[in-house]
């Protein structure tokens, strides 16, 4: 019983991080129809900037804000400089759909190399702002620390902010309209180009939050968020790739599911298990938990 509770707690904490990464991927997919592999690079770059700030100032809050702003900025730069140029020059044929994805893979490599040149490829310790020792109840210690609590609260806050923006604001309405029917959105007067950039900015910020929250549990390297990209992608697909709520539910499902598999079967199975979960999700519900069939065909 205790083991199951532990698995659940670890799963929830990881699941929230996966959800954030999934959210970032979904935001970019919805606004520009690109699977952005560079998201892992953008997130780790933001995390390095947060690391730099926290080492210099010893102020985690400042580092968090700085890292998230950097993430947002990098998102905007990538969309404006790279993606817009690509869309302008490669707008037809089978290459049009593939070019941005390949470009994002290339960008991932580029960002990691730049980080390696600036900070080195060795591990950097990202010290946690709060305790990573599990809470103790009587004689039992659970694998859920203040840091895990911070992860859950931080991620949940980001999700609530996004939900409010998307459902209650004009900006959110414009983002949704531009995602569903860009042409009609333009005819209604929405500046779809600017709205697409906004999608990338939000995604950059969400990825940065994921990177900055997960890294204090571990050391960082230019490659340390690559696996998160895979988990985030699987979570996004489980959620239907189109839906923000889907990304959150997909992330939590994957986080908790994997945690149970690792607890009861073995830690070496994490990647095979991820793909089993993805395959099962696609077999049982190809359109994802929250995706419609129409959206998948679009």
């Amino acid at each position, binding site marked *: 019983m205790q083991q199951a509770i532990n698995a659940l707690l670890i799963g929830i904490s990881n699941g929230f991080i996966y959800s954030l990464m999934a959210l970032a991927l979904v935001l970019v997919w919805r606004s520009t129809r690109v699977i952005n592999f560079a998201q892992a690079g953008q997130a780790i770059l933001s995390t390095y900037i947060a690391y730099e700030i926290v080492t210099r100032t010893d102020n985690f809050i400042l580092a968090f804000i700085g890292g998230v702003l950097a993430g947002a900025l990098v998102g905007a730069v990538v969309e404006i400089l790279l993606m817009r140029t690509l869309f302008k020059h490669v707008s037809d044929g089978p290459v049009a759909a593939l070019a941005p994805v390949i470009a994002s893979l290339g960008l991932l490599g580029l960002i990691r190399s730049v980080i390696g040149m600036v900070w080195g490829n060795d591990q950097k310790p990202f010290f946690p702002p709060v305790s990573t020792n599990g809470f103790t109840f009587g004689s039992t210690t659970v694998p859920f620390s203040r840091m895990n609590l911070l992860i859950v609260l931080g991620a949940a806050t980001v999700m609530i902010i996004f939900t409010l923006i998307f459902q209650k604001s004009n900006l959110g309405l414009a983002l*949704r309209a531009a995602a569903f029917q860009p042409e*009609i959105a333009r*005819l209604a007067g929405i500046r779809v180009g600017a709205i697409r950039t906004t999608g990338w900015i939000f995604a950059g910020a969400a990825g940065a939050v994921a990177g900055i929250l997960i890294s204090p549990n571990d050391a960082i390297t230019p490659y340390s968020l690559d696996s998160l990209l895979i988990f985030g992608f699987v979570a996004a697909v489980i959620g239907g790739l189109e839906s923000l709520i889907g990304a959150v539910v997909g992330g939590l499902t994957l986080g908790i599911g994997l945690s149970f598999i690792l607890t009861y079967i073995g830690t070496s199975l994490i990647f095979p298990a991820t793909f089993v979960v993805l395959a099962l999700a696609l077999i049982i519900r190809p359109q994802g938990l929250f995706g419609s069939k129409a959206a998948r065909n679009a």
Partner: protein
Amino acid sequence: MSGLTVKDLVVDHGAITAINGISFTVEPGQLAAVIGSNGAGKTTLLRTLSGLKHASSGSAQWSGEYILGKKPENLVRHGISHVSEGKSVIPELTVKENLALGGIWRKDKKDVVAVTKEVLELFPRLGERLSQRADTLSGGERQMLAIGRALISRPKLILLDEPSLGLAPLVIEQIFHTIDQLRHKLGLTIVLVEQNAMSALRIADIGIIMNLGKIVATGTATELINDPALHAAYLGY
């Protein structure tokens, strides 16, 4: 010069010339019906005028300003609203959100509220369905929603692409009646593209008959309706 003036317009669709050098003028407050069969270039004409499609050559002026090459989102700000073919609404959004979309860019929020109220008075059915998703509406209701959304940006020129497409005859009549009412009430200039030639000409001031990218006849709506040669060739019936 005011009104809409199109001169020597050529629009290519890849290797095909969709519009091959057409010129016409629509005076302010007029309703021009553009008639022709599939492939005549009617839809391409509207898409070019609203900025969705690039022209290869020629010019178009609205209220004295050259409009070709401008983006649709900017032309809306110059009073041009395009209601595109096939009930131009966003099915995933609610009726309320679809209407709100038309006013997002506008600074005068008070007037957005006022004009939304007017639209709901004009189309009470939409008022009853505000929180429903647009894809639950009937074809006629969707067309009303599309026109309603366009009105919220307070346009002076409306480009209407086949509002009758896929609607039942009774609903078509109702839509045409509404269009006729609207333009008199609001002093709108309208370019109405239709395959439903007679219904369109009945409410139009002038008619422009297109075939394979060219204008084959223009005139007042009455003249065109009464021209036996045109009847046989293009208007059907």
